């Protein structure tokens, strides 16, 4: 028998263990591949969605009239690539559909909006334009647009027409980017858990094969040869089993991502989520590397780390590192500085946690009775000897706590973001060449209409303490004017404000600035800023800072009454709730006062529901994967805990020999295991809360210039604690079964040696 066959004979005797190892590799690969695919595609989807929104343009008539089929025919005859886009708003729950002409879209090539669905025309949401027309004839609202490719220049457009941006939905902007950080963090977490999973099963195997290794050494086989053979064994096993893992991971990504993609496409009318093939080589290489690191890194590297050898000096090393890391995160200069600070905190926590928990476990035990003393000492040993899985579970729970808080906060923020941007049920664009004041006068005299206001947008320059126009220090920002200031805006979240801020804004006694501008310029409520409105220069106090949820540009909000006639308004619209009136009636009235046939009216409600759909699906996926990851992290600790408890089984059996009943021994095991895992959950809590704070209050502002509100969810903390206790309970049940199987052979003296003090 060769050394190789002697090693492999273990799996002949324990085929289930080989199966468990294979299963762990497959599951770990599946999980990581699935998450990394989802993250990649979510990032690509959001990027494409922004491109889809930003990249489209349409042709409109110079006279303000709505475009018609005749316009389409005329423009095509002029040789222009034009595509009809008939948006039909059906009553809920059917919602919006878009009629397109597949033949007309051919000249767009692969860039045609909704191209992926144009071919199928399955009505979700694209259908043939003839069917869409039929819906309009049956009474649904229809809005025809004529899209042209983005490369069409203004001088190529026939007279009587002009180019105009074509927006198909709200841009997610920085909110989406920020959310991707969340997914990236999840990817790192999954990789960590993956490594732990494989390591736990591998260690279980090593424990069971220890006697075989001892025999081989006695037979003269060098330890290095055994190591090399074990390495080859793991490479071979991993190489075989990652393949189905990758395939299953992609399947998982497709299943979870399908719904996500569908909603994205519905919202942005573009093929945004296509899970492509991708290669097998990169995921396979990553997984083999992770597996080898997880199984063999401690042979050379981790063994040298003081936290594994349990030297007391780790406290003297860990405390300053923790202080340094916390300080670096509290006062970050750059994003890189911040990440180094976070890494230092994690390293220090990893070093200190086992020691601190061990100390706490023994604290005050000296005066206790013999059994209590044993319990506390044994627990202290467990914390030190299980340092790696304890710290890993602590990190996993902390990251899950942080991600959960982030996801929930994102959900809440996104809701408020939508609420702010789509505050009214409808908005109506004021046609160019028309006077907004006519519409305002019409609405003011209309009985039964709900809340409404006029929005006027333009540009302005602000200077902190204006002593005359100082162009060198002025900053160009967006100007956002609302009149009248009413219930549609007074519900906005103000991050900071002076008393009666809305009243002061409404009466022109102050301005508000968005979070981005306040952060960049350091504006505080009460501080006077100067700004220009056309020819006019004003100096007014900041009365409030409003949350803007990731809008990257600075903005100043003023009451419409202070806008001078000379102000260059770039865009005007009316936001309104129809109240007791039908929207069609208001639309007709406004069309009449503005002397136009067709108004651009957007149904904010349907946009809101579509946008919510996208994020709901994304949050659902993140939660599902987070829970799955946590369950696997728990399994990892369960297996590693079980492995370690197994090495001490003889000593727990001694309790039985010394006269404790099986029930009493089981009780002791239960106490130890549940206290161990419960303490891990408790230790993870401050780290998780701190990580949440670091993500929302430090990373986000530095990376994107805005911050999410910090929120904590004690209910979820409780769930984590219960989960950890269940893991501990499971360990004790497994151990009880193990002890009941018969008198185990005593562990070798060197196995129990070290780490006991």
């Amino acid at each position, binding site marked *: 028998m060769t050394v190789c066959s002697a090693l492999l004979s273990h799996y002949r005797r324990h085929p289930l263990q080989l199966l468990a190892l294979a299963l762990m590799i497959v599951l770990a690969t599946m999980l990581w591949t699935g998450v990394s695919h989802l993250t990649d595609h979510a990032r690509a989807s959001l990027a494409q969605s922004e491109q889809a929104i930003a990249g489209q343009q349409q042709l409109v008539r110079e006279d303000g009239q709505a475009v018609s089929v005749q316009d389409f025919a005329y423009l095509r005859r002029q040789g222009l690539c034009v595509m009809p886009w008939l948006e039909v708003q059906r009553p809920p729950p059917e919602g919006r559909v878009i009629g397109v002409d597949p033949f007309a879209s051919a000249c767009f090539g692969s860039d045609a909006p909704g191209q992926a669905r144009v071919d199928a025309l399955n009505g979700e949401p694209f259908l043939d334009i003839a069917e869409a027309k039929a819906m309009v004839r049956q009474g649904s609202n229809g809005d025809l647009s004529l899209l042209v490719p983005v490369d069409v220049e203004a001088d190529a457009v026939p007279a009587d027409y002009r180019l105009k941006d074509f927006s198909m939905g709200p841009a997610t902007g920085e909110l989406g980017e920020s959310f991707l950080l969340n997914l990236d963090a999840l990817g790192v977490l999954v990789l960590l858990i993956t490594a732990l999973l494989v390591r736990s099963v591998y260690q279980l195997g090593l424990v069971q094969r220890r006697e075989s290794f001892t025999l081989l050494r006695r037979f003269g086989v060098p330890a290095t040869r055994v190591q090399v053979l074990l390495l080859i064994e793991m490479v071979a096993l991993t190489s075989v089993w990652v393949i189905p893992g990758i395939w299953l991971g992609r399947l998982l990504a497709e299943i979870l991502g399908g719904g996500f993609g569908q909603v994205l496409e519905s919202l942005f009318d573009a093929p945004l989520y296509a899970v492509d093939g991708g290669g097998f080589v990169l995921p396979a290489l990553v997984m083999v590397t992770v597996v080898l690191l997880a199984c063999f890194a401690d042979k050379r590297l981790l063994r040298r780390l003081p936290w594994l050898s349990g030297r007391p000096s780790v406290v003297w090393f860990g405390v300053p590192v923790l202080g340094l890391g916390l300080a670096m995160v509290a006062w970050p200069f750059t994003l890189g500085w911040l990440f180094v600070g976070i890494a230092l905190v994690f390293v220090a926590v990893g070093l200190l946690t086992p020691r601190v928990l061990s100390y706490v476990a023994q604290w005050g035990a000296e005066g206790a*009775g013999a059994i209590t003393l044993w319990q506390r*000492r044994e627990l202290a040993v467990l914390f030190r000897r299980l340092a790696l899985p304890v710290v890993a579970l602590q990190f996993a729970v902390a990251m899950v706590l942080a991600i959960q808080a982030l996801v929930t906060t994102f959900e809440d923020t996104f809701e408020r973001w939508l609420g702010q941007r789509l505050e009214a049920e409808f908005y109506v664009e004021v046609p160019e060449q028309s006077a907004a004041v006519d519409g305002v006068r019409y609405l003011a005299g209309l009985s039964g209409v709900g809340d409404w206001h006029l929005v006027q947008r333009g540009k302005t320059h602000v200077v902190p303490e204006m002593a005359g126009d100082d162009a060198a220090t002025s900053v160009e920002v967006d100007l956002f004017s609302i009149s009248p200031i009413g219930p549609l805006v007074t519900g906005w979240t103000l991050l900071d404000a002076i008393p009666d801020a809305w009243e002061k804004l409404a009466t022109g006694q102050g301005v508000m600035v968005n979070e981005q501008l306040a952060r960049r310029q350091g504006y505080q409520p009460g501080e006077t800023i100067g700004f220009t409105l056309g020819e006019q220069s004003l100096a007014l106090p900041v009365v409030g800072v409003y949350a803007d949820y990731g809008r990257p540009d600075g903005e100043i909000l003023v009451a419409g009454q202070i806008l001078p006639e000379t102000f260059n308004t770039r865009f005007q619209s009316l936001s309104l709730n129809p109240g007791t009136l039908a929207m069609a009636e208001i639309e007709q009235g406004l069309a009449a006062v503005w002397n136009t046939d067709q108004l651009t009216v957007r149904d904010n409600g349907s946009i809101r529901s579509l946008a919510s759909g996208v994020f709901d699906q994304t949050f659902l996926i993140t939660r599902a994967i987070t829970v799955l990851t946590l369950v696997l992290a728990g399994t990892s600790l369960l297996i590693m805990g079980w492995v370690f408890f197994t090495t001490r089984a003889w*000593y727990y059996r001694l309790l039985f020999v010394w*006269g*404790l009943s099986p029930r009493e021994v089981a009780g002791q095991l239960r106490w130890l295991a549940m206290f161990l895992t419960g303490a891990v959950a408790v230790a993870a809590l401050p780290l998780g809360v701190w990580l949440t704070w670091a993500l929302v209050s430090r990373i986000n502002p530095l990376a994107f210039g805005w911050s999410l509100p910090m929120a904590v969810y004690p209910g979820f903390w409780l769930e984590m604690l219960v989960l950890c206790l269940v893991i501990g309970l499971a360990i004790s049940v497994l151990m009880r079964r193990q002890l009941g199987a018969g*008198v185990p052979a005593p*562990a070798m003296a060197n196995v*129990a040696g070290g780490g006991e*003090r």
Partner: protein
Amino acid sequence: MVASLLTARDLNKQFRSGNQPVSVFRNLSLQLDRGESLALVGRSGSGKSTLLNILCGLEKPDTGSVQVLDEVFEGGTDRQTEARWANLRRQQIGVVFQEANLMPALSLLDNVRLRARLAGQNEDDCRDWLERLGIGELAGRYPDQVSGGQRQRAALAMVFAMKPALILADEPTGSLDRHTAEDVTGQLFDLQARHGCGLILATHDAELATRCSHHLDLGHLPET
């Protein structure tokens, strides 16, 4: 009539090796009174450890009965039987294995205290027992900080601190050098005689066996 300390009647024990039943011992009976010692001798695998385990309730015989003091056990694996055995082991039966008799997370003194506490004895005597066995100065050390002989002395201290009626020792000196082994067994017999408890000693060592008042040779290999 005063009952014996230990009486075993018609004990039978079989294992299965593959599909083959292997008989460890058949119709084995023995009796031990206070102050007596019994050496179990025999080749490896002859069933010495199995018999010791049966005599303290760690394993169950296939048939037969065991009586320790006034507790009689005739088969049965119910919770009440287990509790009766556990109570006997806690207070009346001291068990010493070849090695690993101590909790590694406790000092030698704390190990002795734990055993005494479980037996309901006074913890104040524990340091004395370590002194008597010559390892008093090592009381604060942990098992992995002392030699194998010192660990076995500590194990004996634990047994005597519980003031047992019966000591079961399974090759207690098997892992020790001859000089240390003689020293440890000398103390074992000395203390056993002084305290008048029963001693059953499983050993390969014929010379050691001669120091016991009775012998039981399980010398044959198990029969298939």
